[in-house]
């Protein structure tokens, strides 16, 4: 059986199916005969203990102090709570409820008490309590529980959906690939899977009824296909393809520890886009020049509350420590558009969120939040090479206001006698307006970074999350290339360094063209680094410049596509 899905990362994964089935939350509401009371009490207790063991295992994989760590720890404290265990025990005994019904009763009661508190954060927590109760019920029903332990080494996980926190708890060393029935390219889980370098298919229409645990499956993320019980020919073909890719990966590893320079000695700064501290820890294997984009809004993901200045400082400090002298580029919170966070006060509904209050438009309306981040970044700059950039700046007025905020924070810190360091300041160029207004802003900036994903979305008026538009409105098109070129040339004239941090640069066929256009720095997905680095190192800068000239002369998308096909770079 062969099924289509949206590939969110590349690679081929062969393995054994592991179903992350929808929970079995069914409750047994029959009146319990008294002689069964001790048995049901033991069932509830065993399930709680089993879940505790699972959570302890997950906890061991997390960085202490992270939000995921705190969430798991709080769940553990609840499960170990004698008060809670007593309530479940007495519900079973006094009300003659089954283990599942008793757990349900106690957790729902707790959740309703939390929801009744006049406090949005606690109301959110009340949902977490309900889901913790469901997990216990699930274990009692024997439906799950074993899932995250004792997985085969070549597991391919098939699930309805995975929340980012569920993803964070997966034993990634044993999971070779992930297939979800839901989800799109820009969903949080997609971004996490891509960063972890795991082949993943989303929006894949498999049926749980048709697959069982332990079946041979292959994910071909190059072709966006899931093969269930593949025949011998398919398996052989894909094995060859996988082997070829594995050899290529091996061959690429020789570039890990060398500088990213072309054959004719043109140096390119190759940086990584990251979303968390965990990503930084994984970067050592790739050989990079630094972090070109730290998407800090992901620190809010799953957070029960907004991380304060101290919590942010700790995160950035740890990242700087791990980077050992390399530059880190911190982007201020880019909230809005497709990113909503439970810990933030509910945003007003907008008809066009991508054109609404997002990026610095949000930050400038929530200055306390902005200042806590600016202060944390300023303070951490004392310990390393730190660049700070603002997303969605479109005009000089915004930049003035932001720079004034930075000055205010510096003043505050000085008055409080707190140390802070020198920052390099920049903006993300991601709207046509920013490109056109660039000359007026450059004198106040140390660097700029082109956000090609959004630049394409806003130039083409094509929603990047709308899959129906993806094929006809690619980011790599004449209009976007012209804007990128304008940006690079304007920055050059002003003597301001210019980077590009979008998906485009992660495409090893496009990266050389971008370098040829004059970009001295590219920031890409960690998983794409080996391939891009090899191509840049094996090529010639002069050849890249020729390619860029040809690309800029292309008038149609089809011409650009044939250029990509025709220009066989050494590999």
């Amino acid at each position, binding site marked *: 059986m062969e099924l289509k899905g949206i590939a969110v990362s590349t690679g081929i994964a062969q393995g054994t199916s592991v179903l992350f089935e929808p929970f079995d939350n069914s409750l047994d509401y029959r009146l319990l005969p008294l002689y069964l009371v001790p048995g049901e009490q033991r069932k509830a207790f065993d399930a709680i203990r089993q879940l505790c063991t699972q959570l302890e295992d997950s906890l061991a994989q997390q960085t202490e102090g992270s939000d995921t760590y*705190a*969430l798991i*720890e*709080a769940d553990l*404290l*609840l499960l170990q*709570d*004698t*008060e*809670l265990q007593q309530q479940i025990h007495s519900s079973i005994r006094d009300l003659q409820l089954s283990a599942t019904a008793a757990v349900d009763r106690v957790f729902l009661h*707790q959740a309703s*008490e*939390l929801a009744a*508190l*006049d*406090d949005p*954060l*606690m109301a959110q*927590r009340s949902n977490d309590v309900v889901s913790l109760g469901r997990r216990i019920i699930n274990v009692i029903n024997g439906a799950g529980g074993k899932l995250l332990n004792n997985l085969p080494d070549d597991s391919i996980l098939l699930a309805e959906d995975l929340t980012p926190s569920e993803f964070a708890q997966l034993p990634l060393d044993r999971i070779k690939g992930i297939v979800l029935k839901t989800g799109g390219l820009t969903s949080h889980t997609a971004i996490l899977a891509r960063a972890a370098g795991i082949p993943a298919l989303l929006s894949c229409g498999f049926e749980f009824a048709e697959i069982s645990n332990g079946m041979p499956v292959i994910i071909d993320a190059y072709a966006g296909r899931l093969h269930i019980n593949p025949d011998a020919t398919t398996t052989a073909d894909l094995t060859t393809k996988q082997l070829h890719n594995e050899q290529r990966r091996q061959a690429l590893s020789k570039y890990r520890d060398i500088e990213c320079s072309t054959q004719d000695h043109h140096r390119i700064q190759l940086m990584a886009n990251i979303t968390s501290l965990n990503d930084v820890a994984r970067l050592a294997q790739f050989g990079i020049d630094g972090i070109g984009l730290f998407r800090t809004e992901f620190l809010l993901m799953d957070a*029960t*509350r907004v991380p*304060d200045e101290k919590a942010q400082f700790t995160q950035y400090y740890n990242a700087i420590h791990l980077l050992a002298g390399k530059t880190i580029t911190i982007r201020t919170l880019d909230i809005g558009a497709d990113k909503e966070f439970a810990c933030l006060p509910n945003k007003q509904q907008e008809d066009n969120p991508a054109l609404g209050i997002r990026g610095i438009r949000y930050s400038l309306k929530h200055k306390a939040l902005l200042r806590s981040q600016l202060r944390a970044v300023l303070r951490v700059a004392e310990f390393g090479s730190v660049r700070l950039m603002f997303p969605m700046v479109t005009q000089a007025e915004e930049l003035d206001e932001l720079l004034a905020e930075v000055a205010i924070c510096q003043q505050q810190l000085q008055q409080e006698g707190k140390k802070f360091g020198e920052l390099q300041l920049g903006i993300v160029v991601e709207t046509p307006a920013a490109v056109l207004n660039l000359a007026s802003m450059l004198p106040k900036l140390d660097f700029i970074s082109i956000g090609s994903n959004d630049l394409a979305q806003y130039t083409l008026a094509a929603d990047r999350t709308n899959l129906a538009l993806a094929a006809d409105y690619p980011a790599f098109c004449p209009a976007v290339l012209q804007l990128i070129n304008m940006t690079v040339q304007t920055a050059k004239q002003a003597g301001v360094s210019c980077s590009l941090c979008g998906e485009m640069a992660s495409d090893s066929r496009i990266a050389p063209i971008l370098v040829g256009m004059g970009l001295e720095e590219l920031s890409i997905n960690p998983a794409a680094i080996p391939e891009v680095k090899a191509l840049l190192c094996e090529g010639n800068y002069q050849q890249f410049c020729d390619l860029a000239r040809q690309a800029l002369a292309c008038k149609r998308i089809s011409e650009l596509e044939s250029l990509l096909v025709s220009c066989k770079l050494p590999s």
Partner: protein
Amino acid sequence: MYEKTVTIVAQHGIHTRPAAVLVKEAKQFDCDVMVECQGKQASAKSLFKLQTLGLYKGVTVRVFAEGASAELAVNKIAELLETLS
């Protein structure tokens, strides 16, 4: 019995994360430390009960305990309630 009254100053109140810290501290003591707030009581060792008290910014909380280590325990928990955020 030893007791102390404190006011919560944390901007977001004593939410899950600080409450978890509090519970872990309380478990270090032999005696049971009780927290009373707006007419409701909970053991400081129970996150389950503590969560339902509504420990917002500005509310007054009575902390009390009995036994040998009561004074030490109450002082520690009271201090945490006043400083955690």
